[in-house]
């Protein structure tokens, strides 16, 4: 991720610094009009489909009626936000979103790092290639198909239900209808889908480690374990930090597409997250565009703040950051 890596050379047009902006821009436009023309369609695209919706956030301060449009709808100030904070589901949504997001951070995120370390330590190149190829496969299965498979495996007679019953004596039920199983199902299937794929980044960082570091460690009497702790992991830290920031930024965007395919009203108790609620209040039940937008707005702001803060922190602590 090189968000701000476009530092090439100082802009040569610095001789025009003293002139007012308008004049400079006119000159620039005359000189580079072809470049601007080329960017025009892209600019339009971003303004309409990325910034248009951002401008559309104003309807969260209105009682928006599609028939009246933004101009004709009544303004209600912060009402929808206050309503959301008083919503009987507010606590549940926040807790569920946090629970799923944190579980992903605690279980899915490190799983890929561990897998990369384990693959890296395999002695046979061939084994390591086979493991990699197999572990990437689930990434190519679409969310809908994945959820179809999950539904079958955890149904009353499903393979996973039976296996857990035989191994641990767990009750035979359709696990998707039990609130207690939702998060484990979500996390395990998330690991199944992504562990191999997410390990690629770490593997490529691992291959970049200077072998001499290991030789030096061996000379100093370091055993395998010491080498992993004192050489491999420190070399991985910058990559881990970058991936962690990206992950935290996406944290509140928990895979709502997957949740929507897996949850039922029976499991809302643990499965309903902010984004699924946004969808339901926007399209399915008790539809209210403005309210739903306000809830989504809240979510976006939390997301943005999270990336911002993590990025700041990581720059201070480890020197790696997104921008």
């Amino acid at each position: 991720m090189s968000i701000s890596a476009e530092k090439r050379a100082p802009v040569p047009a610095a001789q025009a610094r003293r002139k007012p902006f308008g004049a400079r821009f006119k000159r620039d436009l005359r000189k580079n009009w072809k470049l601007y023309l080329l960017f025009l369609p892209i600019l339009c695209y971003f303004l309409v489909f990325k910034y248009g919706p951002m401008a559309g956030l104003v309807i969260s301060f209105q009682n928006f009626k599609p028939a009246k449009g933004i101009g004709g709808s009544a303004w209600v100030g912060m009402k929808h936000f206050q309503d959301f904070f008083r919503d009987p589901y507010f606590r549940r949504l926040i807790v569920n979103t946090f629970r799923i997001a944190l579980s992903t951070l605690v279980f899915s995120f490190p799983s890929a790092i561990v897998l990369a370390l384990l693959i890296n330590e395999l002695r046979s190149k061939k084994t390591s290639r086979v493991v990699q190829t197999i572990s990437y496969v689930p990434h190519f299965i679409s969310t809908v198909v994945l959820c179809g498979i999950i539904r079958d495996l955890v149904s009353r007679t499903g393979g996973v239900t039976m296996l857990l019953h035989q191994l641990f004596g767990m009750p035979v039920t359709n696990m998707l209808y039990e609130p207690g199983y939702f998060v484990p199902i979500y996390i395990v299937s998330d690991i199944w889908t992504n562990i191999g794929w997410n390990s690629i980044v770490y593997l490529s960082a691992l291959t970049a480690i200077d072998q001499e570091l290991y030789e030096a460690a061996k000379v100093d009497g370091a055993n395998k374990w010491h080498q992993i702790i004192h050489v491999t992991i420190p070399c991985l830290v910058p990559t881990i930090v970058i991936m962690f920031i990206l992950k935290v930024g996406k944290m509140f965007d928990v895979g709502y597409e997957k949740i929507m395919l897996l949850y039922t009203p029976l499991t809302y108790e643990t499965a309903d997250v902010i984004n699924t609620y946004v969808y339901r209040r926007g399209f399915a039940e008790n539809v209210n565009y403005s309210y739903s937008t306000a809830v989504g707005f809240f979510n976006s702001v939390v997301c943005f703040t999270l990336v911002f803060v993590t990025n700041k922190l990581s720059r201070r602590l480890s020197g790696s950051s997104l921008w």
Partner: protein
Amino acid sequence: MKKNKGPAIRIPLGERIFYAADNVLMVILCVCILVPLLHVLAGSFSDGTAYMTHSGLLLWPLKPTTAAYASVLGNKDIWTGYGNTLFIVVVGTGLDMLFTLVAAYVLSRREYMLKKLFNLLVVFSMYFSGGMIPFFLVVKEVGLYKSTWALIIPSLVNVFNLVILRTAMLGVPDSLEESAQLDGAGHLTILFRIIFPLVLPSFAVVSLYYAVSHWNSWFNAMLFIKERSKYPLQLILREILILSDTDEGMMMSETIQFATIVVATVPILCAYPFIQRYFVKGVMVGAVKG
């Protein structure tokens, strides 16, 4: 498990245990990944009623039959879905790439004044978005509601992919572009004749990302597409796999569901060995900054 072939090197016992454990863990992982897939495959070749009375994981078909496939192949919805998805993947990815290439080119140039502003504009939209409802309203306002184009135009540029391409273009030596410019080449010539061949690996990666995301997407289609004849494959799959046991969908036996999964997934998995290399490269291009 695998012994070191070097004759003179003695591996301490602790390390040998470590390597053995490592190999065992990897075998367990591969089994865990493959068994569910094998189960689906075995199920798709099983007899419908035999599967109904069976419980647990299948590793081999029960009363092998291809009846489920016959019924999937006879299902018209699946084929129209396939056709729609193919259209979206081909046209969508083509347009995505055109837009992303041009955007990456302009953002990687340094001679114009608004460069910083444009970059900021683009990157900010990666971290903050208007959310579901405003997006829906914009698409509706633009007149794309209920049209297949609603699945193509609103998602033309993915900023993450754009950043991958821009980074690749920044790696192209300036001197190449400058000498072309001296020869009187315009921007499009520079982009397609000089830069494009040099960023081909990243180009391949990014097109694959786009193609896969079009192939997999169902949520936007659910929001925007109302006519069944325009449903992409994933929406049809959703009806068959997810909604079939609720009142919204049609009843389908599990073996037919499995056969559907196989029919809808095998094309991608067949292409997988060929594209894996590019994907792997792409993850590195996109994620390794320094």
